[in-house]
């Protein structure tokens, strides 16, 4: 018998917490994107765990769509990072202070 779903859910919660903490504290835009990927993967793990628990393939379909959206998000996000780097020669988000009041 497989381990209980709660084990995987707690693991996913821990992974989401690490990703959220990294997103809030790191300064490099590229590493912040990686932390977003960690959070998305934590949610995917939750979806798959509930898919197994409820014996429903719908959770796995959701993960499939989350992966597609994550790929699109990374493409556009890294495009923005490249465009910002052209102007400032830095990927640090602390440099972007034009709209500071």
């Amino acid at each position, binding site marked *: 018998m*497989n*381990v209980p779903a709660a084990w995987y859910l707690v693991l996913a919660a821990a*992974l989401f917490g690490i990703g959220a903490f990294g997103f809030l504290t790191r300064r490099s835009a590229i590493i912040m994107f990686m932390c977003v990927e960690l959070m998305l993967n934590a949610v995917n793990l939750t979806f798959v765990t509930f898919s197994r628990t409820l*014996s429903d*393939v719908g959770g796995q379909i959701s993960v499939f769509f989350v992966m597609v959206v994550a790929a*699109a998000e*990374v493409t556009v996000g890294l495009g923005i990072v490249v465009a910002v780097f052209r102007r400032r020669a830095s990927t640090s988000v602390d440099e972007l202070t034009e709209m500071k009041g």
Partner: protein
Amino acid sequence: MIALAYALPSIAVFVVSALLILGGAVGVLTFKNPVHAALSLILSLFGVALAFLAQQADFLAAVEIIVYAGAIVVLFLFVIMFLGVDHSDEPASAPLVGQRTLAGAAVALVIAGVVFLMATSHWVTGVPSVSTNGTPLATGADNIHQIGAAVYTTYLMAFEVTAALLIISVIGAVNLARKERPRVGESQ
């Protein structure tokens, strides 16, 4: 002894995947060099793929490795090398006072709350599947068959919307990343 209630191999798989996932995630958090962080991210994604395999999501485990570890992380590495930022971009001291403490406290509070809710609430399990008309979750080739059938019938609309989303994001990325050059008859 609670551990003896479950089969030892499934416990071993869970422990290995948890170590891979958390070790990789902590690596992303702590490595100063973005290249090391990206390689650490791959480790974490392999752990997630292992957890998918252990939970009858065979197709998604393969897609996780091919799309995430194979394409997305390579895109990250490509941008890191292209920009030449394979060194630390972090300032010595944080500009915001107490940012780490506040972020840590907020994240710990939210995660503790979620885990507490999970531990104390009542779970409904074993309901018949809605998306596959009552067929239970299959493994192996049948898993791919189930996902394919559901994507092209129940979730066809969402599938077509993602196709549009991918086209839009590709056009957007090309437009963002190309060099700006002043066009004729347009004041810049």
